[in-house]
Every structure is written in C-alpha cells, then in structure tokens.
C-alpha cells in the first residue's frame, strides 16, 4: 500500500507528512500528530466526539480518510486557546459546567465554534439542530445549550 504525502494547515501551522490511505483523519491527528482532543466515539458519524473544523466547516474526522486532509485548513480543539487564554466558548462551557466526563466536550466546542461563525444570532432551536450531531451521555444537554446561548448573548450578535 502506497503511503500518501499530505500538506495541510493544522491549527495555523503548515504540516507535511506521510499518511496511510486506510487511516482516518482522526487517527492521523491523534496518533501521528499527538493531538488527542478529538475522540473516537462511534466511529460512524453519529456521536460527533471526533468533530474538527475543515475549511470552516464542522466535520466528523472519523469519516474522513487521511489523504483527504491534503490542502485543507484544519482546526482542532487544541488550536482554539491563544497564549493560554481560552475562547469565550471554552470558558462558557466551564462557567456553565456544561460537561461531566468531558469525552464529548471537544466535539461540542468545535461544532459550536463553526456554527457561531455561520449564524451569529441563532435561536435555541437552531442551536439544538446545529449540535444534534454531538451526543453527550452525562449532562443531558441543558447546560450545553445554555453555555452556547450565553456566548451568543455576550457577543451581542457580533
């Protein structure tokens, strides 16, 4: 099996590496690049624990083959905080205790990050639809939705 050379931007840094075609983007990010924020939950595009942002859009990295990373601009949860300062979304999840075990949290945060770029003033229902591809088996979503609403209010539609 021929390895594939891929070049892409990961959290603002240009990366070049060889990947195995039968690995997923998730596996490359976790095992070759040691960024373990994105998690494998279902491995079938249902739970969203592996959500990363590719060219501005939230996608399931478990459904993306490693060679598909070539030429892309990729953002993982590790790329959000700048100089040790969390983003308002990350901070809101902490303030609202919108997590228990935390396994799903990076996925929720990446979905929220992409979604609030696309829709600055979403309704509660729109938030629920945008996050429906992320499953949490601990908190029951109430606090997660409230954290997102808090970010929307504090940003004031900007």
């Amino acid at each position: 099996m021929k390895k594939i050379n891929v070049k892409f931007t990961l959290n603002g840094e240009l990366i070049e590496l060889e990947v195995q075609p039968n690995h997923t983007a998730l596996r490359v990010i976790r095992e070759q690049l040691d960024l373990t924020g994105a998690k494998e939950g279902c491995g079938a595009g249902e739970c969203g624990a592996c959500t990363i942002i590719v060219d501005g859009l939230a996608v399931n990295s478990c459904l993306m083959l490693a060679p598909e990373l070539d030429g892309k601009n990729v953002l993982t949860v590790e790329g959000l905080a700048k100089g040790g300062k969390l983003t308002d979304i990350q901070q809101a999840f902490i303030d609202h205790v919108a997590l228990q075990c935390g396994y799903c949290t990076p996925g929720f945060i990446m979905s929220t990050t992409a979604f609030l770029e696309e829709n600055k003033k979403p309704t509660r229902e729109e938030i629920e639809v945008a996050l429906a591809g992320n499953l949490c088996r601990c908190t029951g979503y109430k606090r997660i939705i409230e954290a997102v609403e808090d970010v929307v209010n504090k940003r004031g539609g900007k």
Partner: protein
Amino acid sequence: MREFEYVAPKTVKEALNLLATYKEKATILAGGTDVVVRLRDEIIDPEFIIDIKHIDELNGIKFDKKEGLFVGANATMHEIQNDKNVKEFYPFYADACGHVGSKQVRNKATSVGNLCTASPLGDSLTPMYCLDATVVIEGPKGKREAPVREFITFVRKTVLERDELVLGVKFPYVECKGIYTKNARRHEVDLSNIVATILKVGDEYRIAYGSVAPTPIRLVKTEEFLKGKKIDDKVIEEAKKILTTEISPISDLRATKEYRVSVSQSILENSLKALG
C-alpha cells in the same frame, strides 16, 4: 480498515481512465459518509479508492428556469440546502437535504452520493422521484442519461456500470408546491422510518415515498386517483386505501410494517390537507 490505494484524479477523463483500468476493484469516494463507514466495517473491500472531490467539473449547483436545476456530484447537502435557487424553486429538496444526518455529515455528504448509495430510505431521493430527475452519467462510450426511476434497481443496486461515473442530477423546473416529510425516532442523525415528498402540480399530485419498498417509489395509482379531485375527507380516505396497495414496507429494528403503513397514510393525509 483493510489496505487500499488512494487516487485523486483532477478531471473526469482521468477518473474514467482509472475506472476503466480498475473496474470492480475500485470504489468511488465523494463525501465518504457512507463509504468510509462501509470500509471501516469491512463490508466493502476495494483495492482502489477513487476520490472525486478534486474534480472541479463535478462541483456546484446551476439553475435557470429553462434548463432547470443541475446538482453536481460533489455538491454537498450543506451547499444544496443553502442554495438560493434550491430554496426558492425546490424548497422541498432543500428541506430533504437539510434532514440528512447531522450538520457534520451534511458538510461532507453529497446528494449524488446518496443517490448512488441507492438506499430505499435515502433522504434526498424522493424529491428526485417527484420531479422525474435525470441522472447524467459518463463512461468510456461517452455521456448517457437515465431517468432516476430507472437508475436505482434494488436495495443498493443501480444501473451504473463499473467503468461509469455519475456527473450529476438534472431536475426539470416545474411550477409546484411541495412538502417533504421525514419520520424518524429523533429529528436529526437518524435513519428514516418513512420519508416522503408530495407535490401539487396544477390539479395533479406527485407522490414519492422512501422506506416502503426495495427502492424509493412513486405512488402512481394514488396519483391517478387524485388527479383533478378536490381534496376532502372522503377523497383522502379513499387515497389512503389505495396507498396501502402500492407500498410494501417491512418490519425491522426501526419500525414495524404496520407502523410504517399507518405513518405513510398520515403523511399523505397531512400533505394533501396542507397542499389543498
């Protein structure tokens, strides 16, 4: 996942050459939301994956009233559901694409991929059936077109040859009102128990259902009965009876046969009342 070679052609011609060489050893990858799951579960075992996403000719959604709508093989559900013309002239198709999987899935999955997967419950397929869409195919002998109703032949079976590629789907422009309905256990990220699109075109109705037969189907007898009729309770009751003669749903882990028949009738009733 078993081993395979990955190739990413840049033109349709290049892709066709690869398909002609590899034939049944190759699997085409577009959005990958179905293919990657099947690779992972080792349901399919290709020697070559041909990723068509770098073929610019397959991108985009075009519309004008004379030619209708053309949805390229690489157009994602996200692009289709947000396309200005699809929203204005084919709102039920925008709705259908907006009900596939989750946001993450819609950002990758394509409607043409949904068609080629040929699942009886493909969420974006009943609008194609209602509009008698045409599948545009290219192979070594050139281009050909297949009516969507003839394209899917059975569960996960199509008339596509192993050396052919679907370039896109053409929808004629039809003045109509339409309603798309998906019944599932949860609103998002679920497979449909029943999926349907019902259109009113002039004084006729076009009715397409998914998950009630091995392929999506048009309910031609129900359509024939409703032609020119004024919708009232008596007509609806009769139409619901005819509907049951045209569908053959099965019981599976998602729903029973009886439930699917009942939901199919309710969808017909609600849609007819709303369309008038």
